């Protein structure tokens, strides 16, 4: 290979690794392979697959909240309620009605989305903290109904569900369900990426920046608020459906305010308006205390308090999200290998 050819092939390689879509797919492959290998080679307990799976499920709902809060500047404390509603609906439709998983998924996403859009309508009238309180109220109403409507939710005893059967003949088990979760997460990440980097994303950004300016540019506030709320609810509902078919149980206590606040913590810690940051945040808030902090001797009892401490540290040193740590690491790396081309991190 001549020198010139070598250079172009190197360049081709670079454009490939910079392609965001290929990056998403590579990220998905890593998520598929690493935990599987790690458990095969006994690097960690098989049970950790569940932990990672659930944090990826949470990442889906957190991505929806990020579209809402990060990109559109609208707050919601109702994520857990919508996620719970979808989980009960999907369990009920597959177990009690005996309908296929695909039908359950569709209905269990559609119904919460309609409610989510109604909340979006309310958001035109109320803003900021008041919107937070209103969405909190919706979520609490839902949680209370999970306790009361026993025909649907089986009350405090919890509603059971099973691993899904795809297209009527692919019966999933825990490992394959984990693959399915990764698949859905990557799809959701791709869709989010496309939306937030296109016309809709710019309109959402403009709406967050200044409503007057957005309107002057022709952004119909009602329409884009509804889009933001619809996306947030769809993602939360998808995540609820995956949750109930992965954990195979849904309890009212799972869908409390604490979970909604956890979602908030995930996107703030991971990175507002960052897709990878959201996944990272979900991992830190949910998987880290379970998988790592519990391993520290003498501290296993207080792993969640340690996690609180970790969160405070992250916010102090990476107020824009821990995802920026990778840029810092890259800069340090460039300095070390002496390329000298240090890119300054632009704090968003």
């Amino acid at each position, binding site marked *: 290979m001549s020198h010139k050819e070598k250079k172009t092939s190197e360049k081709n390689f670079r454009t490939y690794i910079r392609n965001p879509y290929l990056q998403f797919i590579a990220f998905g492959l890593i998520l598929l392979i690493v935990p599987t290998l790690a458990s095969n080679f006994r690097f960690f307990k098989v049970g950790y697959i569940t932990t990672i799976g659930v944090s990826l499920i949470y990442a889906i709902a957190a991505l929806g909240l990020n579209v809402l809060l990060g990109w559109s500047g609208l707050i919601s404390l109702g994520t857990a309620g919508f996620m719970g509603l979808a989980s009960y609906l999907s369990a009920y439709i597959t177990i009690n009605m005996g309908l296929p998983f695909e039908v359950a998924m569709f209905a269990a996403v559609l119904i919460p989305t309609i409610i989510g859009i109604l909340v979006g309508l309310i958001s035109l009238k109320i803003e900021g903290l008041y919107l937070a309180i209103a969405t909190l109220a919706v979520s609490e109403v839902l949680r209370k109904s999970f306790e009361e409507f026993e025909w649907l939710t089986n009350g405090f005893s919890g509603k059971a569900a099973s691993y899904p059967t795809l297209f009527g003949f692919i019966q999933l088990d825990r490992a394959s369900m984990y693959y399915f979760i990764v698949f859905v997460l990557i799809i959701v990440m791709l*869709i989010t990426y*496309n*939306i937030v980097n*296109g*016309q*809709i994303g*710019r*309109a959402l*950004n*403009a709406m*967050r*920046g*200044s409503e*007057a*300016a*957005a*309107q*002057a*540019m*022709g*952004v*119909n*506030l009602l329409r884009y608020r509804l*889009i933001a709320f619809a996306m947030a609810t769809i993602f939360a509902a998808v995540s609820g459906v995956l949750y109930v078919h992965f954990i195979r149980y849904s309890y009212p206590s799972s869908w409390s305010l604490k979970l909604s606040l956890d979602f908030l913590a995930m996107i703030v810690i991971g990175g507002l*308006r960052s897709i990878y940051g959201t996944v990272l945040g979900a991992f830190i808030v949910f998987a880290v205390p379970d998988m790592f902090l519990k391993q520290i001797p003498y501290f296993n009892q207080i792993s969640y308090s340690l996690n609180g401490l970790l969160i405070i540290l992250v916010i102090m040193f990476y107020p824009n999200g821990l995802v920026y740590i990778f840029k810092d690491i890259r800069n340090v790396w460039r300095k070390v290998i002496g390329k000298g081309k240090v890119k300054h991190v*632009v704090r*968003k």
Partner: protein
Amino acid sequence: MLSENEVLRIENLSIQFGGLKAVDNLNFEIKQNEIFGLIGPNGAGKTTVFNCITQFYKPNQGSIYFRTKDGQVENLVKHKVHEIIRLGLVRTFQNVELVRELSILDNVLIGAHIDFKSTIVEQALRLPRARNEEKALREEAEMILRKLGIWERKDMIAFGQPYGILKKVEFARTLMCRPSLIILDEPAAGLNDVETAQLSEMIRTIRDEFNCSVLLVEHDMRLVMDVCDRICAISFGKFLAKGTPKEIQTNPVVQQAYLGTTEEDEHE
């Protein structure tokens, strides 16, 4: 309603906030390819007129006729705020309303919001139409940035850019919708002498290159006198005078409103 060479005509415009008549029976018209200034002392109601034209306020009385991009005549009062830009009328903001976290190019593309035809699903899946649209409008945005001389900065984040650059970005954003009339809300606010001089140059460039009219709502007399073809002066919501910069400068009524008489002093 609107004679041949006019792009905007305001007829008997009045708006009242409680007991205060902010704008009282105002009339003026802007011709095609004209730079028209609206001036007045503090509290004269300039910004209110501005907000009435762009429909942020709904006037109590009067009509605002506008010749749209397709040559039709529309009464703006019948339209919603976000529909105004579709007709070919676009505004800037006094304190530059850009999205700090977006790149300059993306900020300019916000101005092309109404030009996108692809649906949510097409955008979510990046189907061909969404991709092509994005590409075409991106090229157009780059072309405008090049004309305004800030193309090299297109990938930089808006936050932290010098004020003069941000003003240019905002102009670029308004030009994306190929407007027939641009309304500038006190564009000279916060600029120094040199920048103000550059601004008047740029306003002329915009008028000539993009073939549109400009309505300038402004405090800064140097800019107004330098760049405007005609000026309308108002005070306390009422019409004072209309004419070329020379005529306005020498008009005794305008002088009185600005410099004040004993009677006016009591008002202030």
